[in-house]
Structures are given as C-alpha cells and as structure tokens.
C-alpha cells in the first residue's frame, strides 16, 4: 500500500483513514490568509469529491484533494504542510479543471508547497522536494537545465546516493543513462546563457541576498 502514515505521536482521536488527529485546534486566520494570498474562493467547495475522483495520484496522498480544501477551511495548517500530498501532486490540473465551483485546487496545493518549502521543516517527500531544489540550482548555474548534469547532481546527493545504492536503482539509472547517451539524447556539455548574470541576480534578490 503506497499510503504513508504521517509522522509524529499517535493522537487520541484519529481519522480512520489517515490516522491524523481529528480534534486539532486550527489556525483561525489560516483560511483568510490563504484566500487573500491566492485569490482562490476556498469557501465555494461543496465536497462533491470530483477533484479526488479525477486525481491520478490520490492514492499516494495522505490528504486527498477534497480534504485539502476542507483542512484549509478548518485552519489545519500543520497537517497540510507536513503532508505527502503537497509534494506528490503532479500539477496535472485535473482537479482545478473539473471543479464545478471553479476552485483552483491545484493552485491551493501548489501554494501550500511554496509555504512548506520556505519553512524549516522536513518535507514529507524529501526526494521530491530535493529534486525541485536541485533543478533550480542547475538553472542558476547555467541558465538552461541539462538533463545529464541535473541527474548527476541529484544522484550525487549523499542521502539519495546511499538510498539508490541500497535498493539497486542506481544501476538502473546508469543503464538508462548509457542507453540514452548511445542514442544521442544526452547533451554532455551544458550551454551557459550569456544572460546568466541577470538570472543569478534574480535568484539573489529572491533569496534576500544583497548584490
């Protein structure tokens, strides 16, 4: 079963599906702040579950899409930022597209992902979060992202490398990489943008660093 239980002490009153604490004191302004920050009308949801039915990865999420809306309405912020949901979401936008109330479910989940990324917490899906991080780092290095270098950098991360050595998937990665290279699909040398300077300046600005 691919569903992962949330980390932390077992609560007294628990949801039968996820094991999450049911009586959690919600953050009272969380809904308001979230609606203001995103412009999404989260209150419009009538829990029809169309989004969850449409989601291709709902089974891998601890909090299902329609529940994300409900948790937000209740102010259960901690559960959301610690969920696997916000990382497993593929941004395929099925939920947003099919919602009869035009609630941007994918937009909300993405916003929660942004929020979690900025907080000093361990993401529930560490590798998925790391991959995004590394992608942006590669972008900062060269201006364009080179797949070979991206994968190499990703696989060289100590925790990732250890895991891949242990479960044998590093061999598969290398084998696939070799096949792709043989067929000419890997560019060995990355291209460096002439405008890399202004791109890096943008990064520094976003990270609050001075020029």
């Amino acid at each position, binding site marked *: 079963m691919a569903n992962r239980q949330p980390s932390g002490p077992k609560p007294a009153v628990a949801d039968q599906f996820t094991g999450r604490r049911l009586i959690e004191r919600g953050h009272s302004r969380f809904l308001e702040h979230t609606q203001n920050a995103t412009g999404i009308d989260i209150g419009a949801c009538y829990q029809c579950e169309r989004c969850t039915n449409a989601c*291709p990865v709902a089974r891998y999420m601890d909090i299902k899409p329609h529940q994300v809306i409900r948790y937000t309405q209740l102010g259960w912020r901690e559960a959301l930022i610690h969920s696997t949901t916000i990382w497993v979401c593929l*941004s395929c936008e099925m939920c947003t*597209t099919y919602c009869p109330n035009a609630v941007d479910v994918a937009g909300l989940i993405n916003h929660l992902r942004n929020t979690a990324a900025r907080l000093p917490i361990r993401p529930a899906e560490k*590798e*998925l979060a790391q991959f995004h991080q590394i992608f942006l780092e590669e*972008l900062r290095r060269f201006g364009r*992202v080179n797949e070979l270098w991206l994968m190499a950098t990703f696989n060289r991360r100590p925790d990732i490398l250890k895991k891949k050595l242990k479960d044998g998937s590093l061999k598969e990665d290398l084998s696939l990489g070799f096949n792709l290279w043989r067929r000419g699909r890997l560019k060995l040398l990355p291209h460096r943008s002439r405008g890399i300077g202004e791109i890096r300046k943008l990064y520094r600005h*976003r990270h609050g660093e001075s020029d």
Partner: protein
Amino acid sequence: MALSFYPGCSLEGMANDYARSITAVFEDLGIDLVEIDDWSCCGSTAAHSLDETMSVALPARNLAAAGEMGLDIVSPCAMCFNRLRYAQLMLKRGSFDIPWQVDTGLAVHDMTRFLAAPDMLAQIRKRVVRPLANLKTVCYYGCQMVRPPSITGHTDFENPQTLDAIMGAVGAQVKDWSYKSTCCGASIGIGRREIRDTLTNRILDKAAHTGAEAIVVSCPLCQANLDTVPRRPGAGRLPVFYFTELMRLAFRPAAEAGWFRAHLTNPLPLLNTKGLVAA
C-alpha cells in the same frame, strides 16, 4: 511568415530529435522559426513549486526577449507553453517584482494548435508526398498543453483535436480514445519511481487496447516516459513518435532510418511493415 521559437531545455538534450524534425517540417512549410536569442529555462515544475515569483520571472525573461523581436512565440514543449502563458496571465493581472519588461499582448502558440489551424492544415496536406499508409495511431496530449483551460485556451481539454487533425492530414488513421490527456506522471518518477511506472504503463496498456500501432505526442517528457518506462515482462509496447517526426516522414521523399535512432522503443519494424522506411 515568421515566428519566434522557444525550444525549451529538453530540445537540446532528451528531445533533440524532436528539434531536428521541427526544423525540417517548418522549412518545408516555408515558415521562418527564429530562435529567441539567449533564451533561458522557463523554470518548469521546480519554479512554481518553490517560488511563485520565480515561476513568473523566469518565463518573463523569454517573453521580454520575444517582445523585442516583435514576433509571436511558438513553443514545442507543452510545459514551456503552459509556463509562458501562465506568466503572461499573471503579469496581465498584476505587477511582480521582476527585472524584465513584458509585452503581455504577444501571442504564445502551442505548436500543435498553430499547425492545426485550417489554413495550416491545408498547407500540410499540400506538402505530403508520402501519406502514412493509414498507420493506426492514437494521439496523446498529456496535461500541460490542455489544462487548465483558463491558461491554455484549450476548451476541449477532455477531447483535444489538434494532433488528431494534423495526423489525419498526413494520412495516418487516428483512433479516438478516452485517455488523451490522462497524466503520465511527468517528472515524479525521479523521486517516486512507482508512481510514474504505474501511470505511464497504464497509458501504454490503454493505447494498445485500442488497436493502435503507435502513439503520437508533442510533449518531450511524455515521450520520454512512454518511450523508456520499464514494462512488465512479456507486455508489448507501442513506439512513441513526436508528431513532427511523422510529418517529416510524410513530407520528405528520402526517408532515413537514422531519423528514428533516438527512440529507445524501436519504431523501425513498424515503419518497415508499413513501407514507410526502407529496411
């Protein structure tokens, strides 16, 4: 006619065969594709996942460059298309603290939509010298090209027709199927392999079940997933073509087997039996 061209990072690497077929096809159609000078990565999934402002800023740099050229943009990669449109929309709605000045009136075209316009289809039909012998295909659009309709403009997101129309115009047989825009898993396979494997394999199974002989795509990541995903032992698998590869095959009298060497799932046996490429 001239358009500015935003290839996207994958066209330099994993999808460089897509790039070559695009060059050939646009040359044959007599349309000038001018690559945006010093274009940079749109940020893809990573930017929007981690930082909203970056997800607008990174595409905006390219929108600004195209604006300087004064040419509408055509994008072959579904994700880049989606991100460029997204940035444009966000900038229309409000201001962001970014260092580039963007003309939000520039048209950003998804390549398939551009080529499926009625006048383009007529031109495509004229250029066909080798109709594709009723090659049985299903067209797979993936997510980012069609959803959400508020960004992509594809109001027919459940049953898009652009690839279907283009393939019909070059003499392929196109089968309808319900999984045209069902997600393949995109880049999640890098962290959660089994998710991508489950989603992509399901699409391959459903495609085969229609009786199709090949899958036609336009998104580089979809092609990579469908072409390379590990299959169950004994399960067949369909070759996956970029639509421009098939267009080139229909346009150019001397078909070369080497055009298809990048495919991990070898399409040559199929093309041979159809008499489209010499053995």
